[in-house]
């Protein structure tokens, strides 16, 4: 909400974008330096995996923020990104340069078509439908042993070079950490610009009052399907990076728990905020790591935390901090 309010300032329109660009640049630099400070390759590797999850959480949060729809099946797009890359590498002679765009475009296209149908329904029905679609994909991959490797998963051998770069970069924790980090930063910056664009505002308006949007002359189906498609594209980027890094993908990435944790990350971090879900991912994975050492009931603890957060801090971590700062700011001025 507050983010939207801020964008409506009649101040020079370029300034917030310039500030955001500065922040993005700084964040990218931090990410590039960070691996130098982390000695343990295991930690770095976990962090890299975590960042691919953060990309998925960001896509889930983007969908919530920009359309109000809560997807219970977003692992589908992450998994598709990974599987399309893996399967095309394994079964076709296509160059990786051609495969990568396809691995993002196919999930986006699927989401767009599915979106034209499912965004017509409301809230819970949408969530259930996304869950159903995701389960279908999970089952297909598990059952399709010859082609997709079934339960055993799929090992992927990368060609030596892509876009002139050695693909060993993707499998070296430090380098891949930088690649995934910068990708996430670029995604966040683009989503920031999208939210401020005319299209972004139309989406906010449709989320706010779909009927009124129609009566002021807008089609409302297409924009929502488009947001769903963009969200799917982002999720699939996470999956592509995941498979490039691991050289392996299994149906786990399509499982509903994958969708579920991405949603939990988005909510804990605060889906109303651009960086909320990514922050949520960090917190979630750190908690899972620490709690996993202490107790095997970490899932229950995270579940309980989620309930606590949704009831007590509905704006998530980032939202709660934001509102706290604003309230203090107001108090100071008064």
């Amino acid at each position, binding site marked *: *909400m507050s983010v*939207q*309010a801020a964008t*409506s*300032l*009649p101040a020079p329109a370029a300034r917030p974008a310039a500030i955001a660009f500065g922040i993005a640049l700084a964040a990218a630099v931090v990410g590039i330096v960070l691996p130098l400070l982390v000695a343990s390759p295991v930690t770095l590797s976990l962090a890299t995996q975590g960042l691919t999850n953060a990309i998925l959480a960001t896509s889930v949060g983007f969908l919530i923020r920009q359309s109000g729809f809560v997807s219970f099946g977003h692992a589908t797009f992450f998994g598709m990104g990974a599987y399309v890359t893996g399967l095309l590498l394994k079964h076709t002679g296509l160059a990786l340069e051609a495969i990568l765009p396809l691995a993002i475009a196919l999930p986006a296209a699927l989401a767009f078509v599915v979106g034209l149908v499912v965004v017509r329904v409301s809230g819970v029905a949408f969530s259930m439908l996304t869950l159903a679609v995701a389960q279908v994909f999970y089952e297909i991959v598990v059952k399709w042993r010859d082609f997709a490797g079934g339960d055993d998963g799929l090992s992927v051998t990368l060609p030596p070079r892509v876009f002139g770069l050695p693909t060993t970069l993707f499998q070296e924790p430090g380098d891949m950490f930088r690649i995934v980090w910068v990708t996430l930063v670029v995604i966040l910056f683009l989503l920031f610009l999208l939210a401020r664009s*005319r299209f972004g*505002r*139309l989406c*906010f*308006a449709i989320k*706010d*009052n779909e*009927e*009124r*949007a*129609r*009566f*002021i*002359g*807008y*089609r*409302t189906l297409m924009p929502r399907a488009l947001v769903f498609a963009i969200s799917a594209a982002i999720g699939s980027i996470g999956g592509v990076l995941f498979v490039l890094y691991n050289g392996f993908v299994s149906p786990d990435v399509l499982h509903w728990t994958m969708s579920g944790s991405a949603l939990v990350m988005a909510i804990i971090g605060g889906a109303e905020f651009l960086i909320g879900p990514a922050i949520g991912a960090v917190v979630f994975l750190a908690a899972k790591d620490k709690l996993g050492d202490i107790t095997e009931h970490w899932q229950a603890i995270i579940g309980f935390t989620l309930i606590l957060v949704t009831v007590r801090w509905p704006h998530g971590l980032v939202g709660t901090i934001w509102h706290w700062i604003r309230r203090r700011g107001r108090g100071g001025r008064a």
Partner: protein
Amino acid sequence: MTTPALQGIGLSRHYGGFAALRNVDIAVPAGEIRGLIGPNGAGKSTLIDVLSGRAGKWSGQVLMAGTDVSRHSPQMRRRHGMARSFQRTSIFPNLAVREQLELAAHHGGGVDEVLEQLKLDGLGTGPASELSYGDQRRLDLALALIGRPRVLLLDEPAAGLTVQESLDLARLLRDLVKSWGVTVLLVEHDMEVVFSICDRITVLHLGERLMEGTPDEVRRSPEVVTAYLGRSAH
């Protein structure tokens, strides 16, 4: 006679077995302010819904300047020059006033003009849900006025406004007709407003058109008096 700017032919709308609108004809010439009155539940809002494309299952025909728009979606009708306001305020609660008017203007501009006309300037950049009720009512109207539609369907725009605000609104509508020749269909409970600014008035009662005439004719009509007195007067 020239082609009406807005015309409904044989409009009917049922809710289950209940006929909220029964075979209603209405024709509003360009540049006219037409009042639409009737007791509570007479079908006024239903008629606006049917004309604007909001109603689900209905029958009949809707024409704008002779073009059949019966099968047009609300957004197509809007692009054709039809705009409406809502009896139950319908705005974008989380967008700022200017932001939503800019959206409603598409690429046409005119936001400042409408802001001024409806005294919505200076309301800041906060979400519209924080505005007072009266401001929200006028914002709803502004969302309809922006872009200079050719046909305006207004469902009780003055409900909840102060007497002074209603009078200002009445004057504004008159001015708009003069300045850009808009055609207005106005649902209004305040008889003073209706009789003072409407060229003609259509009276609905129990989903049917009871009569139609000039303010004087309507005022003198015994049927209208009975229809209103038949129910406890508002």
